[in-house]
């Protein structure tokens, strides 16, 4: 052990602004969540979406029927929302729960940041992984299609925009869900089971209940159905979706925001410093 303490005299620099402190927390959280489950789900998302987009585009191009609707193929399959669910679970379940569990939240909140800054950093980190998984593959797929000359640039650009819209909507919803469940417990496993179980239950349950009752409102309870309705519309696919796309988009956005608000409320109940 050394016998003299470090001496600095006065601070020879300007302190960083709050935004940079939030960014520092977010960056650490993004790196921290780069676990095998997250990376596997993201990798699968890229592989599946890009393959579907490129092959469908090539086939549609061959038969001379290529439109933006061709790019909607990944949303017709339950695989895409399932992968988003995995990313939300692996990247989001522990985001608050682990900090509460190991009580490092005490250290975060003893620093010059507000509770809302902490939550914003955590939300941004979780959303980053979801955006990488939800928006990235479609964007890359559309770019590859354009680069291969399989579709006109305008179609690819429009598809790219559609991927961004649907991907961001999914990111908002799944981020809110992950934060809410993560704030409920100090075990990331429990939070993960909660996220997975509730979304799957809503997907299956809404379909069953809607089938029995014939209600036109019940399908809105299924985030997967809501996302598909929005995707059908923004990609310009014909036909009538199960739900009104605008209402579905509002449901997803509203749920995402409200669940994030719920996570904030839960955090205000967390003991910052144990007695």
């Amino acid at each position: 052990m050394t016998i003299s303490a470090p001496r600095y005299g006065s601070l020879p620099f300007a302190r960083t602004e709050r935004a940079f402190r939030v960014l520092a927390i977010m960056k650490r959280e993004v790196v921290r969540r780069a676990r095998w489950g997250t990376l596997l789900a993201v990798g699968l998302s890229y592989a599946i979406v890009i393959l579907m987009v490129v092959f469908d585009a090539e086939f549609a191009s061959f038969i001379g029927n290529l439109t933006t609707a061709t790019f909607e193929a990944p949303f017709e399959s339950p695989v895409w929302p399932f992968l988003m669910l995995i990313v939300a679970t692996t990247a989001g379940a522990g985001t608050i729960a682990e900090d509460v569990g190991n009580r490092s939240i005490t250290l975060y909140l003893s620093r010059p940041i507000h509770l809302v800054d902490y939550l914003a950093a955590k939300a941004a980190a979780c959303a980053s992984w979801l955006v990488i998984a939800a928006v990235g593959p479609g964007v890359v797929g559309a770019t590859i299609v354009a680069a291969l000359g399989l579709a006109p640039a305008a179609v690819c650009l429009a598809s790219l925009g559609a991927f961004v819209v649907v991907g961001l909507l999914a990111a908002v919803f799944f981020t809110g869900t992950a934060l809410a469940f993560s704030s409920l417990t100090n075990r990331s496993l429990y939070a993960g089971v909660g996220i997975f179980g509730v979304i799957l239950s809503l997907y299956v349950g809404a379909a069953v209940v809607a089938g029995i009752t014939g209600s036109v409102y019940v399908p809105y309870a299924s985030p997967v159905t809501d996302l598909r309705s929005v995707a059908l519309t923004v990609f310009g696919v014909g036909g009538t979706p199960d739900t009104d796309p605008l209402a579905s988009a509002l449901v997803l956005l509203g749920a995402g925001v409200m669940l994030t608000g719920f996570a904030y409320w839960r955090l205000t109940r967390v003991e910052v410093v144990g007695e």
Partner: protein
Amino acid sequence: MAGGLVRVDSVFKRFGSVEALTNLTVELSSGTIGLVGPNGSGKTTLIRLLMGLLAPDAGTLTVLGHDSQRDSLRVRELVGYMPEHDCLMPDLTGIGFVAFMGRVSGLPREVAMSRAHDVLEFVGLREQRYRRINEYSVGMRQRVKLAQAIVHDPPLCFLDEPTSGLDPQGREEMLGLIRALSKIGNHSFVLSTHLLPDTEGLCDQVLLLNAGRRLASGRVDELLAVKNEDRVVRVKGDPSRFVAALSAKGLTPRLAEGEVRFTLLQGDTRPVFQAAFETGTEVRYLGRSVSTIEDLFLSLVNVVPVGPPT
């Protein structure tokens, strides 16, 4: 320093039916301050209030001239905090953790890393700084907690039970580190502890709390001087007769655990020996009853009525 180091004015804080702090008013100046009291006396609640992590039910708190509620971000820029419990980030290395906490405290990246190296070397973790925290022993964890509290060079540092869980050697080393830090100019420490000997020889001021109430506060030497007239006597023979004889001489003795405690009148010890002579007892020991903060605390707990919250 405008407004002193810490100013607490008529603060009340209640958690449900439990009154954590009751009409607490105290002013502390720069230095090393012992925040002393038994578990549940309100020490941690006071720290939480001072850092703006809790809002008082009534009253105001000022830290380094800043209102801890209205200007809590500024307060937290200027203070460091070493929590009592284990709250580290086990997936990080020591250096990564301390540098990260520096960045969240507002240090630029390069400065945070540079200071992380400095403070880890200071706390004796130079060789272990690249090891993950989940491989650290209890003593190393306490040291890295101290390192993260001082990485941003705060003028005031709250240390909550810094010797908790340490063996005697580790405790001495931790107190030595705090002692070394306290010798740096313009750096103050609030050392919260229920281990009163930790404050001996380290703190120049003390705030004694019990059941959310202030028992005493101020400079240690002044507080001990006030109680300078208190004496303790151990006698061979019947102490109850000796107590009765002392009472007859106008003193107010208390018999506890075989010892007789009383306050001298004008520094005069002759009544003690007269009472011993009259009762046939033998004075085996006569000395000051308050010579340490622990003695002071115990004497005040006996004197100050502390009832249940009303």
